[in-house]
């Protein structure tokens, strides 16, 4: 029996002990010597110009070192391209502290640096700033007619496909037709850890930067370009990240500020943002969606139109894929997908967990429910009837698609067959019971990724790749892959990430990390394995003579022959026998372009939700959720399950609570704190069942991984809203589904 089969096992997190004992250090926890502290000052107005910053008044306070603002920041990189990070959208990136112009409320306008954090905070509270106020415009609702189609979007954005068939005509001729508008306000990521950067000044321009980010290399590139540093001078470390959800994909302004201050003051500096300032940055954009569906007499979809309009800032055109999914989730020959942006005075929106899809699936899946009712078909049956066997957007086959199994296994577990269709027909005492279903599709992406593996004479394997672990379990699954590939126990393997001196890995986002870093780790370990085999074959009396890499297996700490597993060499002995101290391999994994182009690569899910509603009081509880996910190979059911549990909680949060409310009078998010921006507490969360449907896929990538960080969120909000309809007969198309909408 193999003791070194780790992949697919529900192993505990290898970084768990460090996290619960404080051994895992986050960006704001590196207490480098002689540290100064910076506190960012946020604008109180939404639009205008800074007339004067009364820095002199606080510079007089002993211990206040400097007030950085556009009034004194030295001239830095000139061109926009220097400020563009890996995922910058089109437009002109915001340059902190480099102009008098205020483009949005809570924009950082100054940095106060002092000997202590307390002093910096105190002084920042006293800093007077005079503004010339201009009229702002923050209301997307007034921009319905001012939408425009974005030109070039950011990496990963795909413009909606051209219309297919004749959607307008088929909608007119449809047997049943529904149309509705769906709305949600802006939502802010709010990971547990606030953004922080600790910059250690090592003389001249040499810096070590501890940054909260989802990509150390992205931060490194940014500060290199903006401050004219070389790679050695801009060493970025980010080994632990307390959640990101997309907010850490782009370098945040505290990084700029901390580096600026360190270089100017020639001193180590830390800048950490406050919870309130977590609302001064990118967010899921306020989005207005319109969906129109038509069906044929047999309940097949005749035509579909999905339109989305969302906000962007005045200076960048943030794009996300909101409507495209609607052209591939169901079989439909007449489809029109349209997508527009409108500019208002806010910070540029930013990818937030399942960007675009979380938004789009909410509208489409509510509309599908409405149509199921209009056509008199069970909502699950309606989806099965319109099941897409091919990706009609791309006109490609799916590399694999086990969504049907998700529907069946999820429905069985949930007990969907006991559902009675009539709204309000199911009860638990005085409570109304509602059951809703929804579904989702998400990209199974992979990016180029490098890794390095080193085996030392003591038999310990260390694998490096400069990726990130935003709490998803990257450390653990990479250790599993490396250990299994070379037949070692978990304890004999260390995986390291989050350092720009390591081989380069992509940003941690898009649910591509498991596939990208995983396949890179596998490849580099195979490469090391080949070298090991060669070395082993030099040993005296060894039984592996003439065997190729395909003829052997790495299991239980041995290399052994496939044809006779009793013929083996102990891995730990190989280096010693050859007088080698260590063996190294380095490799860059490139995605297979043929497989990538030939197939449509996607993960799917089906989610079933039960709500109970007190009709008089308008209170709603999500009492049960079953989320069935088809996401290829599951590397670790425990960490994967946590990802989906987190997604479900997130979806419930999106459905019932989250909204960054803009006071248009001030052009400011007014609930910008954790007390009034609500997310669920444990008492709001009841039973959640996660099912991973078996899905083998050798085309998506060699390990058959699709990634599970985002797909589990899809459809959750829609399923909650659909369940609320089933319970009450009330369609709530404007999130969140709050008490006043249910009771009135």
């Amino acid at each position, binding site marked *: 029996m193999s003791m070194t089969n780790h992949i697919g096992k529900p192993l505990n997190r290898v970084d768990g002990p460090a996290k619960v004992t404080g051994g895992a250090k986050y960006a704001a926890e590196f207490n480098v010597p002689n540290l100064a502290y910076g506190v960012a000052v946020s604008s109180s107005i939404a639009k205008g110009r800074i007339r004067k910053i009364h820095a002199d008044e606080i510079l007089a306070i002993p211990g206040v070192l400097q007030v950085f603002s556009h009034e004194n920041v030295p001239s830095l990189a000139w061109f926009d391209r220097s400020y563009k990070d890996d995922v910058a959208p089109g437009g002109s990136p915001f340059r902190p502290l480099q102009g008098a112009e205020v483009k949005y409320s809570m924009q950082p306008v100054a940095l106060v640096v002092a000997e202590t954090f307390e002093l910096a*905070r105190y002084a920042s509270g006293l800093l007077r700033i005079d503004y010339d106020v201009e009229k702002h415009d923050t209301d997307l609702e007034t921009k319905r007619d001012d939408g425009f189609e974005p030109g070039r979007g950011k990496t990963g954005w795909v413009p909606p496909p051209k219309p297919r068939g004749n959607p307008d005509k088929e909608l007119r001729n449809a047997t049943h037709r529904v149309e509705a508008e769906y709305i949600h306000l802006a939502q802010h990521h709010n990971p547990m850890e606030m953004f922080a950067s600790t910059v250690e000044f090592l003389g001249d321009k040499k810096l070590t930067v501890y940054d909260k980010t989802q990509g150390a290399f992205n931060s490194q590139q940014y500060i290199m370009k903006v401050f004219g540093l070389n790679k050695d001078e801009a060493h970025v470390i980010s080994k632990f990240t307390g959640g990101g959800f997309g907010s850490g994909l782009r370098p945040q302004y505290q990084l700029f500020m901390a580096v600026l201050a360190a270089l100017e003051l020639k001193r180590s500096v830390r800048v950490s943002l406050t919870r309130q300032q977590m609302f001064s940055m990118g967010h899921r954009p306020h989005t207005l969606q319109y969906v129109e569906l038509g069906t044929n007499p047999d309940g097949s979809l005749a035509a579909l139109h999905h339109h989305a309009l969302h906000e962007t800032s005045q200076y960048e055109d943030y794009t996300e894929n909101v409507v495209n999914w609607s052209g591939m989730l169901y079989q439909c020959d007449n489809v029109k997908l349209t997508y527009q942006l409108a500019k208002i005075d806010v910070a540029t929106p930013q990818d937030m967990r399942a960007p675009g899809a979380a938004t789009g699936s909410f509208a489409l899946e509510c509309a599908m429910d409405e149509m199921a009712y209009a056509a008199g078909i069970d909502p699950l049956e309606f989806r099965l009837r319109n099941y897409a066997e091919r990706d009609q957007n791309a006109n490609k086959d799916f590399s694999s698609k086990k969504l049907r199994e998700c529907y069946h296994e999820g429905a069985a577990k949930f007990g969907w067959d006991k559902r009675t269709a009539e709204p309000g027909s199911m009860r638990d005492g005085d409570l109304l019971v509602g059951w809703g279903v929804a579904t989702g599709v998400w990209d199974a992406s992979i990016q180029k990724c490098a890794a390095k593996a080193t085996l030392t004479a003591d038999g310990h394997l260390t694998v490096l790749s400069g990726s990130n672990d935003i709490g998803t379990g990257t450390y653990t699954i990479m250790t599993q892959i490396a250990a299994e590939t070379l037949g070692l126990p978990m304890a004999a393997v260390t995986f390291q990430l989050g350092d720009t001196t390591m081989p380069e890995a992509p940003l941690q986002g898009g649910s591509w990390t498991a596939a990208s870093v995983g396949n890179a780790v596998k490849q580099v370990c195979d490469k090391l394995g080949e070298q090991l085999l060669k070395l082993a074959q030099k040993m005296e009396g060894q039984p592996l003579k003439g065997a190729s890499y395909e003829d052997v297996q790495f299991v239980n700490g041995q290399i052994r022959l496939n044809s006779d597993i009793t013929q083996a060499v102990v891995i730990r002995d190989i280096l010693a026998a050859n007088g080698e101290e260590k063996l190294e391999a380095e490799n860059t994994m490139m995605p297979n372009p043929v497989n990538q182009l030939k197939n449509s690569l996607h993960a799917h899910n089906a989610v079933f939700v039960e709500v109970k509603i007190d009709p008089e009081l308008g*209170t709603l*509880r999500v009492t049960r959720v079953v989320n069935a996910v088809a996401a290829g190979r599951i590397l670790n059911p425990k960490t994967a399950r946590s990802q989906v549990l987190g997604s479900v909680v997130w979806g419930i949060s999106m459905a019932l609570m989250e909204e960054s409310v803009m*006071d248009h009078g001030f052009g*400011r998010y*007014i609930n*910008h704190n954790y007390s009034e921006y*609500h997310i669920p507490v444990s*008492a*709001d969360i009841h039973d959640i069942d996660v099912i991973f449907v078996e899905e083998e896929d050798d085309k998506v990538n060699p390990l058959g991984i699709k990634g599970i960080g985002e797909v589990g969120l899809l459809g959750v909000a829609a399923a909650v809203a659909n369940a609320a309809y089933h319970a009450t007969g009330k369609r709530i198309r404007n999130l969140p589904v709050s008490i006043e909408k249910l009771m009135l």
Partner: protein
Amino acid sequence: MNSFTYTRATAVEAAVREKAADDGVKFIAGGTNLLDLIKENVERPTRLVDLNHLPLTAIEAAPDGGLRLGALATNADTAWHEQVQKRYPLLNQAILAGASPQLRNMATNGGNLFQRTRCYYFYDTATPCNKREPGSGCSAIGGYNRIHAILGTSDSCIATHPSDMCIALAALNATLQVTGKNGERTVKFEDFHRLPGNQPELDNTLAPDEVVTAIDLPNEDFSRHFSYLKLRDRQSYAFALVSVAAALQLDGNTIKDARLALGGVAHKPWRDQQAEDLLKGQPATEETFRRAAAAVVENAQGYGHNTFKIELAKRAIVRALKQAAEGTQHAADIFTNSNP
């Protein structure tokens, strides 16, 4: 955040003396409200006088046979005190409906009385607010006012008082023991918090130098028919949109005595004695409850986002009275207070 000095008071008189001598002084107890406000630059004390070493943590019999709750007893110790659970379960439920276990372990009874509104604008120094800066204007009127008051508002302020504990105290006819430089006095609970009028910067009627030393609960029995119903956006760690403290004494199905107080709807715990009068002597039926509920909101005014509270308050009152009459507050119910 301001810089401040810190001293510890070990006698009530000393605390009073320090406070009377200097406007910059603030008392600190659990600190769970004050420190947040200091960090947000809303409160800017120059000196903190720490009350935590005053000998005011006891929960003991009051002279009239009621119960005296020390001002420095924690909310947790109070809620779980055997006498509170037995004789004043309404208070137990109200306290447990508030905040979180960690906060209740820190929060004191005295501090809870003085906690300030959660109005967004009050907390955000970039916006005008009459309560924070008298005369600067009220941003909530005409702004986003979903969590704001519908009763007893004024043109200067529509903030709500956020406490849960205080709603039960109002219903239970509590009194406050207060010491100031002019000596000791007793303050009726309903006279403690005030409506905003044209001085919203004042939350209560105490003189600045006065310290609350204890809260007295009268020797009355509302331990069988009571309910604290709190409606909010999430199940814990959220303030009430509307809450209702209801307590009845029944003779068969006839209401002998009734108490009704609401939270989340006004600048103070909203006790309505006229509505109570409509209940007294009547059968404990839904119809009676509806009549009382209608009376409570008769003069309510909505400001847009919070207008739903008028109807919600009505329904919540009926439900709470029903629960009180039926004695079902303790029934396992995922819809009411689930965060002890």
